[in-house]
């Protein structure tokens, strides 16, 4: 048991006592716990897959103030897991959509809107106003940013992440145990670990891990139970199994160790080598020479020495394809370079332009002429051939 994160209590109204009755009759929660929940200020970083169940359940549970950080708008591809948003919210700012859902569930909650992405410039100011941070982001740079900011401010950080059928859960609180960097000192190199936009995720995983994070949050606020400090939970949906491993506090941790080398927020995109979002690769001048736009490809598509190479997985090829494309999945490419013809010019594409860029560099390293289609088949559909479905 650790000290409750929130030591303050906010008195309940009669209406709230009626609403939270099922909490109040649990001896471990009771009035003290519920009044701590009401006094609590919780920041949810991201209102996506994990943020959706978090915001809904924490609001229902009576957390008094919920801060929402995001600067994205609702997209159709979000709705498979981001249940706080509905079909009519497509195109609406996620923070606005989430706030409306929260207030519909519980009008007693105060929602603080932060219509911005969390950055090294704003993170300390935003997080300082909260008791607890729950990390529901979708990318490595923001995960390291959230961690470092929480360590610097002494805030607990409830961590959860998901990929395909797998989830991770822990509580990082440097004053009581290890931090995220103790567990993962360095981010994976770009392209080594696919994100959800590239690799996919079973939507309901967000509910499973997000609600588990919410439970940890409530335990921390109310000071009940045994929070997941120093433990990492690993959930495998295919086997319907949780396993737990120990997370040690690293005495050499650059942020929370006794001799920290990171004492202020850094440039996390540079640290991770990837942008802070899991969507399409944005225009980058340094990539200009490596890339080709979909409409530029359309102009040269018929030429005999131009080959379109699709490096997605077979199951993605079944969803959609650009006519004439040759399919060689990215992971099999290193062993199949001999199938490629040095006299040809290769245009490489994937779903959104990340894997194809990596494959292009591989091809070029092997002496082949190659360019990566910026934005992938989804951009090709939008710019050149709308008859191709976008996924």
């Amino acid at each position: 048991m650790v000290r409750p994160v929130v030591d303050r209590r906010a008195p309940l109204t009669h209406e709230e006592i009626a609403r939270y009755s099922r909490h109040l009759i649990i001896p471990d929660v009771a009035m003290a716990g519920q009044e701590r929940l009401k006094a609590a200020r919780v920041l949810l970083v991201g209102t996506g897959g994990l943020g959706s169940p978090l915001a809904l359940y924490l609001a229902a549970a009576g957390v008094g103030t919920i801060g929402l950080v995001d600067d994205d708008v609702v997209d159709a591809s979000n709705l498979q897991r981001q249940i706080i948003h509905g079909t009519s919210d497509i195109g609406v700012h996620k923070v606005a959509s989430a706030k409306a859902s929260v207030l519909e569930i519980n009008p007693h909650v105060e929602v603080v809107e932060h219509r911005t992405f969390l950055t090294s410039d704003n993170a300390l100011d935003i997080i300082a106003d909260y008791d607890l941070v729950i990390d529901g982001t979708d990318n490595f740079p923001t995960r390291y940013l959230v961690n470092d900011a929480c360590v610097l401010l002494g805030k607990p950080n409830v961590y959860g992440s998901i990929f395909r059928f797998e989830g991770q859960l822990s509580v990082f609180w440097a004053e009581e145990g290890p931090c995220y960097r103790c567990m993962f000192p360095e981010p994976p190199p770009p392209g080594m670990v696919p994100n959800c936009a590239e690799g996919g995720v079973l939507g309901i995983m967000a509910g499973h891990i997000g609600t588990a994070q919410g439970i940890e949050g409530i335990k921390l606020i109310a000071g009940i139970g045994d929070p997941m400090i120093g433990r990492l939970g690993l959930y495998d949906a295919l086997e319907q199994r949780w396993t737990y491993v120990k997370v040690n506090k690293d005495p050499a941790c650059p942020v929370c160790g006794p001799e920290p080398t990171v004492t202020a927020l850094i440039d996390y995109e540079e640290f991770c080598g990837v942008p802070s979002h899991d969507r399409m690769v944005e225009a980058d001048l340094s990539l200009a020479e490596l890339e080709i736009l979909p409409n530029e490809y359309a102009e040269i598509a018929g030429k005999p020495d131009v080959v379109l190479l699709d490096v997605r997985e077979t199951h993605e090829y079944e969803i959609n394809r650009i006519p004439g494309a040759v399919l060689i999945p990215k992971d099999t490419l290193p062993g199949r370079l001999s199938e490629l013809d040095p006299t040809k010019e290769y245009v490489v594409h994937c779903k959104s332009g990340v894997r194809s860029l990596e494959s292009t560099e591989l091809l070029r390293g092997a002496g082949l002429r190659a360019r990566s289609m910026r934005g992938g088949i989804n951009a090709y559909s939008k710019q050149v051939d709308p008859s191709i479905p976008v996924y």
Partner: protein
Amino acid sequence: MPKVRIPTPLRSFTGGVAEVVVDGTDVREAVANLDVAHPGIGERLLTEDGQVRRFVNVFVRDEDVRFQRGLDTELDEGDTISIVPAVAGG
């Protein structure tokens, strides 16, 4: 023989299988044998000079080998090696 838990991102190497059995008296030997059985997986776990990659965590008896004897951490017959990669989705 020790068991190895394979995380989702690496299951393409094991034909989708979540748990495999390998021979080995320490983690180094087990990873080498794992790579023989499932070529390519070793490179995802170890750097070129044979160290565990910093974004991959290898657990034996639920404890990170970085805080035990690293790749020299001994294995017993009934041990399970868990491989935990960093994932960031949300």
